[in-house]
C-alpha cells in the first residue's frame, strides 16, 4: 500500500516511515501541510497519517482538502496527534478522519488499521492499480 506520513516533527515522521517501510509499504514523508497536499496529488496514497498540529496548514485543513480531491472509499485518513483526541474533533472537522491515533501511536492498532484498509480497497481502484503497474 502507499502510505503518506505528514508530521512536522521530523524524527517522529522519519521513524514512523521507517517502520512502515519495514512492514513493506511504500511510504512518502512530508513535514508540513501544504507539501502533503502536493505530494498526495501525484503519490495517490491509500492511507494518509496526518499530524494535527502542523505549522501553516494544520492536519485538519489538509484532511478537508484531501477529501475534496479524493473520495472516501479511495483513501483512509488517519489523524495522529499528541493532543487529547477530543480537542481537534471540532464540529467542522467531524467525520473528516476515518480514524485517529494518539501520539506516540499504538503500532499494533496502526497495523490493524492498515490491514483493514488493505482488504477494503475497492476492486475497481485495485484494478486500476494493477493496470497501471
Amino acid at each position, binding site marked *: 500500500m502507499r502510505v503518506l506520513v505528514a508530521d*512536522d*516533527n521530523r*524524527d*517522529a515522521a*522519519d*521513524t*514512523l516511515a*521507517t*517502520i512502515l517501510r*519495514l512492514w513493506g509499504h511504500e511510504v512518502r514523508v512530508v513535514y508540513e501541510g501544504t507539501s502533503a497536499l502536493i505530494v498526495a496529488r501525484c503519490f495517490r496514497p491509500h492511507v494518509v497519517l496526518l499530524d*494535527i*498540529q*502542523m*505549522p*501553516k496548514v*494544520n492536519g*485538519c485543513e489538509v484532511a478537508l482538502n484531501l477529501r475534496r480531491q479524493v473520495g472516501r472509499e479511495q483513501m483512509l485518513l488517519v489523524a495522529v496527534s*499528541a*493532543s*487529547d483526541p477530543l*480537542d481537534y474533533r471540532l464540529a467542522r472537522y467531524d467525520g473528516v478522519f476515518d480514524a485517529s491515533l*494518539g*501520539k*506516540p*501511536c499504538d*503500532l499494533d492498532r496502526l497495523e490493524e488499521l492498515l490491514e483493514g484498509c488493505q482488504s477494503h480497497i475497492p476492486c475497481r481502484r485495485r484494478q486500476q492499480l494493477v493496470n497501471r503497474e
Partner: protein
Amino acid sequence: MRGQGRQHGLGYLTAVVATAAVVLIRRFLLADILEPDAPLYLFLFVVTAAAWFGGLKAGLLATALSTLAGTYYFIARDGWRIADGDGLRIGIFVVSGAAISCFAEAMYRSWDRADRQREALRITLSSIGDAVIATDADGRVTSLNPVAAALTGWTRDEAMGRPLEDVFRIVNEESRLPVENPVKKVLAEGRIVGLANHTLLIAKDGKELPIDDSAAPIEDAEGAIRGVVLIFRDMTERRRAERTRLRLAAIVESSDDAIIGKDMDGIIHSWNRGAERLYGYTAKEVIGKPVSLLMPPDHPDEFPSIMERLKRGERVDHYETTRVRKDGQRFDVSLSISPIKDDGGRVIGASAIARDITERKRLYQQLLEADRRKDEFLATLAHELRNPLAPIRNALQILRLASDNKATVEQVRTIMERQLQQMVRLIDDLMDVSRITRRKLQLRKERVDLATVVRNAVETSRPLIETAGHELTVTLLMESIHVEADEARLAQILSNLLNNAAKYTERGGHIWLTVEAESEGGQPSREVLIRVKDTGIGIPADQLPHIFEMFRQVDYSLERSQGGLGIGLTLVKWLTEMHGGTVEVHSDGPNKGSEFIVRLPIVTEQPTQQPSSSGDGECKVAAGPCKVLIVEDSEDTATSMRTILLMMGHDVRIAHDGIQAVEAAGSYLPDVVLLDLSLPKLSGYEVARQIRQQMWGKNMKLVALTGWGQEEDKRRSQQAGFDQHVTKPLEPAALEELLRKLCPPSA
C-alpha cells in the same frame, strides 16, 4: 373637721336631740329666766349645731323641728292658734335657720374641693416619672415625691424642712466641683433655670448618678416668689444610649463601605464618609437629593424594583450593579439594602451599604484567566511530553524489526538521543519553574566573563538555530565585561532567548545577539545590554505586556509547530531579575520581528584575587578501575549503569534493596556505592547511616542518586553521610566525571 366628710347621721341626730333638749330646758329650767318675748332664739343653736355636723339637710331638718316645737310649746296657745305678731317671729327664725344651713353647706363644699385638689396634686407628684422637690422661699424642702426620694436616698419625712443643699447635692461630672444650687439661682433671678450638662447627683449613701434637671419659681397671685420647684431625672440610661449612638455613628462614619440612608421616595438623608469617597459627592451635596443621581441612566427599572422589594419589607442582599461617580465614571458595586421600619413595623426608609467591587471583579477575572492558562498549560504539557515519545517508541520498534541493519540502528539511536534530550530539557524547565515559584532556586553567583557565557549559550542553541536554517550574528564588545552571575543560569537566559527567536522565526531567518555597554557621559557604564533580535513572526501589541507571564504563548493556534511549554520567557524574566537585571521586549507587530533586551549590572572593580584556575584540570585523566556497588531497585536502570561502568573498566556489583545493599557493602567492600534513595525495605538514607556505622564503611564513597535535586534533599543526604548527591538520570559523561573525582587513578 378638716379632711373629713359631712356626717349626715350625726347632723340629723343633733337636730332631733338638741331640739328636744332645748324644749325641755326652756320649759322647765329657764322658763322664768328667759323673757317670753323671744321664744325661738335658743333654737338657733340647735340649727347651727346640726348644720355644723350635717350640712344643709341636717340644718334644714333642725330648722323645721325647732320651728314646730318652738311654735307648739312656746308660741301657740290652745293647740295651734297663733297670735298675729308671732307669725313674723316664726318667719324670721325659719329664714335665719335656712341661711345658717346654706352657709354651712357652702363651707363644706369648698373644703371638699380643696381636698380633692390637694389629693390630685399628691397623686400626680408621686406618680410622675421625674423626681420633684419643692422648697419654700428660704430653700427648705417642703415636698419630695417618691422618685426624688429614691434618687436622693432621702425619705420624705427626713427631707422635710431641711435646706435643699443637704438633700440635693450636685457636682460637675468632670471637674468634681459643686455646682451652684439651682434653687438659689431661681430665688435670685426669679426665672426658670436649667442645669448645665454633665451634672452628677450624689445620693445620701454616696452613690453618684448623672442627672438632668430644671428649677422653676413658684409664684403666688401677686407674683411674689413663694418657693421653688425642682424637677430632675436619672440620665444613666440616656447617657448609655447616647454613648451607644455615638459609637454606632462613629462606626458608620469610619466604615470603608458607603452607608447611605434614604426615605421611601428615594431621597438621601444620610451619607457617610465612605460614601463620599466612593461616589465623590460630599454629604452636603447629596442630602435631600434623589438616589437616582447615583444610578446610571440606562438602568431605569432598577430603582422601582428595589423600592418594591423594600416596601414588602424584604432585604436586597449583595446585589451587584453599576453606579456612577460624581465625575461620571462608572464602577461596579455590591449593594445590600435593608428596610428601616418604625415602631409600628411600617417601612419608612432604607439603608444601603455599597462596596466597590471593581478591584474584586478585576482580580476574579485575573484568577479565571490564570486558571484557564494553567489548564491550557497542563494540556500543552501533556502534548509536549508525548511529542518526543512518539519517535522514541517508533525507534524501539525499528530496533526490534531491523536490529541487524547497522546504519538504521545508528540513525535511530541518534533520534532517540535527540528526543530524550528534548524531554529532559522540558522537565528541567518544569523543575526550574517549580523551584523559582517556591523560592527554592539558589544562584551560585561569581564573577564571570560575559563573553564566555555568550559563547556557551550560543553553543547550546546552535543545533536548533542551524536546523531551522537561520543565520546568527553575534557581536561582542572589544573589552571584556564581567558580571556577577551564576554562569549556567545566565547562559540559560541567553539560550532561552536564542531558542525563542529560532522557534518563532520562519525558516531561513536572521538572528542577532549583540552585547552593548551604555556609557553615560564618559563615565564607565554600569550596565550591559544584551539584545537578541530576530526577523520572526513578531508579537501583536496587545500581547506585549503579557509575554513574560507564565504559560503565555503568542497564540497562532494550530499554526505553531514548536509548541514548548510557554515558560521559557518566564524563566528568562525571573532569572534576570534574580541577577539584579531587567528584561524588556519590543516588537513592531506581527511579522515585524521582535527584540529582547536583557540589562545586567556590570562588576567594575577588579577582583581582589584571581580565580584560582586549576591549570592541570584540563588534562582529563580517566578514573582508575574501582569497585562500584550499584544499589537500585529498577532492574533496567541498574543493568544499563552496570554496562556503562563495565565499559569504563570498573568492577561492578548490584544490589536491589536496602538490606542487600548493606550486606553487599560489607562483603564486597566497594570503593564507591551508587545508592538510590527510594529503595524497598530500607531507605537509602538508612543504608548510608548503617554503612557509616561500620569500621569498613568510614571511608567508602557514598553517592545519593535521586530524582529530587532540591537543596533541602541535598542537605538531608549530606546529614545521612553521603559524599555526593546527584540527580537521575545520570548521563554517562557525568558518571565518568563523578568516578574520576571519587576514585582518582592510583599513582
